[in-house]
């Protein structure tokens, strides 16, 4: 029941953060479709030699296969990159990812722990900034985020989404040649907006992962309770069998004894 109320709260938080995350994604899609005279580094596609992943996991365990599934997806992706000669930088959110890469090894450039049940944007900024700066300086050529997508209470699926460089999207703003008026300065605005965009997407992913965690934990605990109930039933049956056998034997002995007298 505790898990159920926690789950509801984390889901509310996820839904509250959604409109902003979606709107800023729309704006960014428009921006990527524009034909600006000034093309910011964040909008330039380069040959990929090194990618950055922001990996979102939970701090606590006991939530079924949530983190294991996500990390398995990540490792598979990393092996694929390795065979293509692409290197990987990691920025980790949550203790589970940190613990995993401490034992496995990997190029971890940032790790954030103790995000808590009410994530604050401030705690995430460090891990995001490292990656943004790395992209701007050309150390990484693509930035992806990997987190659990909340499909419903029973299903959570690990999902990659590309943050940088900005990808043009379909829609009204595509195909025409147009550009914004920028007030005051294009560079400053695009830089600020893209940074805000990445931050908001990471925040959204963390909040969504929190909702996934609570849902997965509730299901895991429910399964554990049901399994325990089954075990109790079985043990009860064995106990009763043994008890009955003992009683039967005792009666048989008494009857046998009486007959002998």
């Amino acid at each position, binding site marked *: 029941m505790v898990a159920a109320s926690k789950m509801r709260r984390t889901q509310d938080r996820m839904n509250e953060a959604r409109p902003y995350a979606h709107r800023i994604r729309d704006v960014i899609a428009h921006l990527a479709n524009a034909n600006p005279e000034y093309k910011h580094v964040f909008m330039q596609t380069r040959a990929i030699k090194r990618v950055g992943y922001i990996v979102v996991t939970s701090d606590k365990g006991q939530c079924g296969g949530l983190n294991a599934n996500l990390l398995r997806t990540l490792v598979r992706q990393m092996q694929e990159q390795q065979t293509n000669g692409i290197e990987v930088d990691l920025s980790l959110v949550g203790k589970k990812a940190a613990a995993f890469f401490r034992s496995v090894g990997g190029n971890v450039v940032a790790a954030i722990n103790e995000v808590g049940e009410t994530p604050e944007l401030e705690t995430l900024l460090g891990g995001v900034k490292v990656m943004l700066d790395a992209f701007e300086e050309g150390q990484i050529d693509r930035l992806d985020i990997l987190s659990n997508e909340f499909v419903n209470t029973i299903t959570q699926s690990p999902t990659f989404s590309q943050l940088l460089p900005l990808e043009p999207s379909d829609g009204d703003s595509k195909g025409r040649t147009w550009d914004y008026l920028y007030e005051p300065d294009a560079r400053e605005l695009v830089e600020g907006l893209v940074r*805000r965009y990445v931050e908001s997407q990471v925040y959204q992913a963390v909040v969504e992962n929190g909702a996934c965690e609570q849902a997965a934990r509730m299901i895991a605990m429910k399964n554990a309770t049901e399994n325990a109930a089954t075990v109790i039933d079985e043990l009860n049956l064995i106990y009763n069998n043994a008890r009955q056998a003992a009683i039967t034997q005792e009666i048989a002995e008494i009857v046998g004894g009486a007959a002998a007298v």
Partner: protein
Amino acid sequence: MGELGILPNHTPLLTGIAPGPVRLQFEDGEDDVFFASGGFLEIQPGVVTVLADTALHADDIDEAAAQGAKEQAQRDIAEHAADFDYSRAMSQLAEATARERTLAELRKRRR
């Protein structure tokens, strides 16, 4: 940049948001006032997106708190307290003043 009025089919524009009132006018002639501070404003011909860092319905502004914050900021600037951060005090003053302007806008509309 100062005040900005946006009508349908405005040319695409991208700009930052300074603290101040945002008045929305709906098709049926109704309107509504918000306070917004920080963030970005994007205009496409058919849609305007306000990505504000702080947004508040004008009804929800605490007038006494806004007044108090303004006076506090003014005092800080005048007195130059020991751990004084000028730009921070100025931005607080701008924010408090903008809240009051939003309330003034709301009252004007009610009249």
